[in-house]
């Protein structure tokens, strides 16, 4: 009986570890091969503080949590600039270094021998020794970590994490600081692993490096992925299956290492088969029964430009909304922007036209801060935004769309728009845990707002669908709704009409006109001159990083000098 209770305890510990990793990997999209290293550091912290500092149980747990949280926070910084395989390798290297130090820093960790004699915890006057006695404590730990992770994962904060996972650049473009969220999710993940670490150390009363090696990290990653990333229930299922079930094999009359090998063989094969046939895991992210984000009741009839949100500081109605002066940027000798100045008149649609390679998208990148200008200034509603990070300029009221749309593919249409709304209390840990009612109310209001944006582009009925399943034209409309949801008053649209058939082009142009009529300032980069004449009030003609003409589109097209540039000089 003790044996099975032990198995349950191990499942509980792995639920904690799995959940901590799922937040990081499944929600945040940050693949870490170092979770066992964090687990180990926390365990050693608890063990050493108990043995050397004589701290009693609950305090050692706190030490474990604090140490792992801090370590995770520190690791975030080198991890910030690396993605994909580089991040996997970086965390792998970190894992190996920590493991190597555990083995060889004998003065601190006693190396291979490990640390034994970790004191048993005393709770409510009872000393916990047997698995049965530990069970309530571990169960409580599992419940608490699950609840914390669940609260975070299924909240507006979780929504931003998922957006970051799907597309970091687009997340910046809707006004969220990717850096902050990465630090946050690393720290939370570390802290939750620390809970498991502290409990583990006291439960086993003995730790050595071999519980915290690369194999363990790989096992955790596989557990989370097979269980189902982005779904914490999947992690529970994974823990039960992959930790619990192999224990059944012990009843096979075989040698321990053969049993382990059989378990690993099955595990590895499952991993390969799942990646081929069911990459979303046992319990997928959008499993049936998770219709929370679906559209239960249709939003009240919303029409007209009055419902368009407007965030950012209030401003008077005079003067151009956005002014750029003398912007300069070169890429290895090529002048992408050369003393470029422009002004976007408020409430009007301005177009940037010019031949290929004239630098039009570069201008957008410079205006929004995605590229740093070497010289020049950009002023939004009179305020200098030249040195601001892109996510900050969005908060102040300037936002851009992307030529390749960049929706958050694995999220629903509604979530794509919801995540763009500014100032959501549920995106911060404090209000999320300590002001739940305010958070819930804000979420309700935001949901209506998001539905309003979707209604504006005519896609309310698609709100519950996953973004990647939409046709490209519909995706462009969702991207527009997402842009509107940011509340920005100045909207930069990069090739809004490209890649779609005529009917979509007309719809998009109509929406652009409505936006301008509602007082938004719109600037478009366009190659389709028919579109430009149809929708733009004002146009800038660019060539080789400079603006060489401006005026109404018809005026520009009547200028033979510009025709020479656009179509090539006449041959003599």
């Amino acid at each position, binding site marked *: 009986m003790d044996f099975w209770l032990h198995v349950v305890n191990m499942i509980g510990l792995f639920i904690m570890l799995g959940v901590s990793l799922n937040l990081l990997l499944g929600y945040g999209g940050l693949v870490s091969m170092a979770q066992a290293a964090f687990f180990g550091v926390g365990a050693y912290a608890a063990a050493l503080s108990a043995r050397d500092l004589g701290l009693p149980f609950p305090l050692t747990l706190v030490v474990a949590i604090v140490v792992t949280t801090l370590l995770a926070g520190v690791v975030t910084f080198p991890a910030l600039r690396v993605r994909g395989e580089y991040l996997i390798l970086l965390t792998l290297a970190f894992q190996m270094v920590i493991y190597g130090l555990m083995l060889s820093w004998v003065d601190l960790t006693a190396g291979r021998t490990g640390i034994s004699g970790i004191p048993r915890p005393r709770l409510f006057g009872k000393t916990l020794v047997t698995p049965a006695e530990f069970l309530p404590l571990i169960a409580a730990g599992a419940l608490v970590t699950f609840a914390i992770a669940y609260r975070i994962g299924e909240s507006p904060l979780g929504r931003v994490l998922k957006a970051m996972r799907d597309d970091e650049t687009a997340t910046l473009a809707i006004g969220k600081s990717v850096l902050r969220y990465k630090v946050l999710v690393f720290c939370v993940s570390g802290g939750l692993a620390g809970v498991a670490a502290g409990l583990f150390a006291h439960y086993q009363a003995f730790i050595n490096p071999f519980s915290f090696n690369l194999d363990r990290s790989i096992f955790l990653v596989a557990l989370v992925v097979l269980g189902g990333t982005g779904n914490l229930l999947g992690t529970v299922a994974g823990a039960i299956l992959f930790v619990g079930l192999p224990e059944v094999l012990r009843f096979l009359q075989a040698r321990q290492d053969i049993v382990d090998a059989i378990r690993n063989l099955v595990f590895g094969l499952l991993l390969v088969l799942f990646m081929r046939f069911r990459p979303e895991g046992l319990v997928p992210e959008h499993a049936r029964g998770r219709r929370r984000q679906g559209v239960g009741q249709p939003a009240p009839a919303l029409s007209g430009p009055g419902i368009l949100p407007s965030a950012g500081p209030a401003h008077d109605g005079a003067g151009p909304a956005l002014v750029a002066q003398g912007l300069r940027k070169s890429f290895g000798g090529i002048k992408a922007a050369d003393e470029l100045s422009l002004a976007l008149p408020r409430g009007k649609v301005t177009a940037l036209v010019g*031949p*290929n*390679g004239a630098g039009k998208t570069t201008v957008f990148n410079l205006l929004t801060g995605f590229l740093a200008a070497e010289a020049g200034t950009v002023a939004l509603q009179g305020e200098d935004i030249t040195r601001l990070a892109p996510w900050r300029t969005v908060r102040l009221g300037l936002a851009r769309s992307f030529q390749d749309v960049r929706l958050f593919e694995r999220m629903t249409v509604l979530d794509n728009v919801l995540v763009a709304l500014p100032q959501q209390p549920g995106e911060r840990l404090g209000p999320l845990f300590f002001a739940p009612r305010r958070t819930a109310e804000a979420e309700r209001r935001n949901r209506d707002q998001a539905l309003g944006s979707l209604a504006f582009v005519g896609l309310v009925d698609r709100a519950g669908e996953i973004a990647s399943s939409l*046709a*490209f034209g519909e995706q462009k409309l969702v991207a527009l709704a997402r842009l509107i949801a940011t509340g920005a008053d100045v909207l930069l649209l990069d*090739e809004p*009409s*490209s*890649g*779609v*058939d*005529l009917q979509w*082009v007309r719809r998009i142009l109509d929406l652009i006109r409505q936006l301008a009529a509602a007082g938004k300032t719109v600037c478009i980069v366009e*190659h*389709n*001159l*028919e579109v430009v004449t149809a929708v733009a009030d004002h146009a800038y003609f660019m060539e080789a990083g400079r603006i060489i003409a401006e005026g109404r589109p018809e005026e520009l*097209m009547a200028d*033979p000098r510009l*025709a020479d540039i*656009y*179509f*090539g*000089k*006449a*041959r003599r």
Partner: protein
Amino acid sequence: MSLLAVEGLATGYARKQIVFGVDLRVEAGEIVALMGHNGAGKTTSLKAIAGLLPLWSGGIVFDGESIGQASSAARVRRGLSLVPQERFVFADLTVADNLELGAFSVADPKIAAAQREKVLTLLPVLAERRRQLAGTLSGGEQRMLGLGMALMRRPRLLLLDEPSLGLAPLLVERIMETIRDIARHDHLTVLLVEQNVRHALAIAQRVYIMRTGRLIVEETGAVMAARGEWWDLF
């Protein structure tokens, strides 16, 4: 029978359809220009003809044979050669290596050697820079190299995607002249995507114009050139 006959071409990337049904033909010995605004589907159409993108629907017949399902390597062997718009040379390899690769599909090394002589004579700057890494060449020289690579395999139909992109006006003239001369002397047929409309019209016998994934105009080069400006077509 046309050397190239494309009917109802529809294609795109992943879920994004770019071309919605294009019919065009190129007769042997012609230079045909394919023009239109950025994003109209010109490059996508060329890539589909070359086999780099799958046909979503429609057919491509080259010299009497349907090649719509053939691999790009098979199309190259039949004599169809694409010089892409960007990344049209192997930047980390030498000019000499690039030219050798241009002749990869040529089975007989003697023929490849003879072509190399012709190409180096035609484009002497490549001979000078044989040992240089292609990525260190100037823009114009890289364009020449891209063209030379395609010529190495004696194509019957040359698909050129914006050969003058990013070049100074003088170089643009030179490239266009080179193309016209090669076409004339080697009985080469050319389908050319060009943004420099006037230069394209100077060498093309016929012109197609695309907008938003469809063809809107087919006309002779002379008639197009006589217009003088084309704002309403782009």
